[in-house]
């Protein structure tokens, strides 16, 4: 794999175009928003915005949204991956393909069809739940401020759980069968096998999957914007949605300040990511 005669210059030459493109598309915009936020106008906006209770509510919602959608996707994705490992499932490849569809569907389509399903009078969700007897009154999924964030997190779970299934499925397949055999000979039951063989084997992959899910959740925009545009009365507004609204209002200073908040969060995540890569090398 290593080539001794290839010059370093050639290496730099080949990566230069990609590096330049990524620098122009990421570094330059980051410098632009940071400079803007650090200017006089930006500092003034930051002082009022970061202290306002409305902004704290947005941060809180972003936190709830992230925790709920990541936890949900991990549980459902891991469950699906485990089920597909079972020897009683025929054509696991076919099932895997079917379960992947929500991830392949564009976010704007996913949001649109869920919006229709959530419709309180015409949606099949309320109708089904009422027929089964789980609820008596139609639930206002997208117009009740105390429900809407969770209803939208369910859509995020729906679209990202397949990604977890894919990664964890690959990790589960990679566990050698002899390991289970050996543990069983030592007298381990199904819970023991799960606890001492399955879980440790998928831990690194679960960590990476969680990290990516957190990134997806923190950057999520389309599902919320298309379904509710952050409403009603801001009850589904998270950071990226608030930024977009400021952009639409032409309030560039606010855009820059919120972008900086997002950057700080992403930088913390990136640090975790770099560390996990280093740990993986050793």
């Amino acid at each position, binding site marked *: 794999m290593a080539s001794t005669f290839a010059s370093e210059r050639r290496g730099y030459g080949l990566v230069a175009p990609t590096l330049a*493109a990524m620098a122009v598309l990421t570094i330059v915009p980051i410098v632009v928003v940071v400079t803007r936020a650090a200017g006089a106008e930006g500092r003034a906006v930051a002082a009022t915005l970061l202290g306002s209770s409305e902004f704290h509510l947005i941060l809180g919602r972003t936190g709830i949204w992230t925790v709920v959608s990541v936890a949900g996707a991990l549980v459902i994705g891991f469950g699906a991956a485990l089920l597909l490992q079972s020897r009683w499932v025929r054509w696991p490849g076919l099932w895997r393909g079917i379960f992947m569809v929500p991830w392949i569907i564009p976010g704007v389509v996913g949001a*649109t069809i869920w919006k229709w399903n959530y419709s309180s009078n015409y949606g099949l969700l309320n109708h089904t739940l009422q027929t089964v007897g789980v609820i008596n009154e139609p639930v206002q999924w997208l117009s009740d401020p105390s429900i809407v964030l969770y209803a939208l997190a369910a859509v995020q779970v729906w679209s990202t759980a397949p990604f977890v299934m894919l990664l964890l499925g690959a990790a589960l397949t990679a566990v050698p069968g002899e390991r289970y055999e050996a543990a069983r000979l030592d007298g381990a039951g199904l819970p023991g096998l799960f606890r001492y063989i399955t879980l440790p084997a998928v831990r690194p992959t679960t960590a990476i999957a969680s990290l990516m899910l957190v990134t997806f959740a923190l950057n999520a925009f389309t599902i919320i914007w298309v379904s509710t545009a952050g409403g009603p009365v801001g009850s589904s507004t998270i950071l990226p949605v608030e930024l977009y609204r400021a952009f639409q209002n032409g309030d560039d200073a606010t855009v820059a300040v919120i972008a900086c908040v997002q950057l700080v969060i992403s930088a913390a995540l990136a640090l975790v990511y770099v560390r996990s890569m280093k740990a993986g090398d050793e």
Partner: protein
Amino acid sequence: MAATAQRPAGARSIGARLGVWFGLAVIAVWTLAPIAVMVFTSFKPSGEIFTVPPTLLPREWTLANYLSVFTTSSMPQALRNSVVVGLLVALLTLTLGTSAGYALARIRFRGARSVSLFILLGQMVPLTVLLLALFRMINAIGFSDTVVGVALAHLVITLPLVTWMIRNQIAAIPYELEEAAMIDGCSRVDAVLYAVLPVAGPGLAAAGMFAFLQSWHEFVLASVLTRSDRSRTAPIALTEFATEFDVDWGATMAASVVLTVPLVIAFVALQRYLVNGLTGGAVKG
């Protein structure tokens, strides 16, 4: 459940089997019910869509919604725009990504690690952070409201993962293949063109397809970089079936189906490569 060895069939085994099937059924309903609603609603005549109680299947099947999507809406133009943007993105991403991916897989140079890291970290920057500056930059170079402008912005999404996918694919090809070609008298460039690229071909095609799909999905950048039908991509056009007070749900669902079908076909065709490329990239980190 992850256990795979044989065990005597008994009451426990039947219980476990029922449990597995029940679990599969639950996930299948959760996954497919919303999609089934989309498909069936798209075939309902407009009078049937707002019936109470709602039904899943249309009583009367009609293609009227698809007709209106393709004849009276801006969707056909938007689909054309999306295809052009996607092809541009795939072409640019493959050109840049193959060059960088090859160097990262084959050539030892100082800073190669930092370069990979920088490219990979690019995908962690939230798109909304870049929104303001990308909007200004695309305007400044005169590409506002054009498909080229949207395509250039989409590179920020596709380049990191595709470069990484290609790097992994090339690293998986034995270096001896190039060496053999060079011993036979090829230059290094010829060795890459005639020995490496044909072997990497299917993987590269999948990577290009992946770039196309990501561009086809993208909403937030396209929503600010496009202002008219001239450059508006399909995801943006889809939201235009909804005006402030009224949503044409039949046409919206038909357009949603139209947007989804090519993706599902492409995914089925390329599933193997995409799954390998993604899990390889993500797990190796």
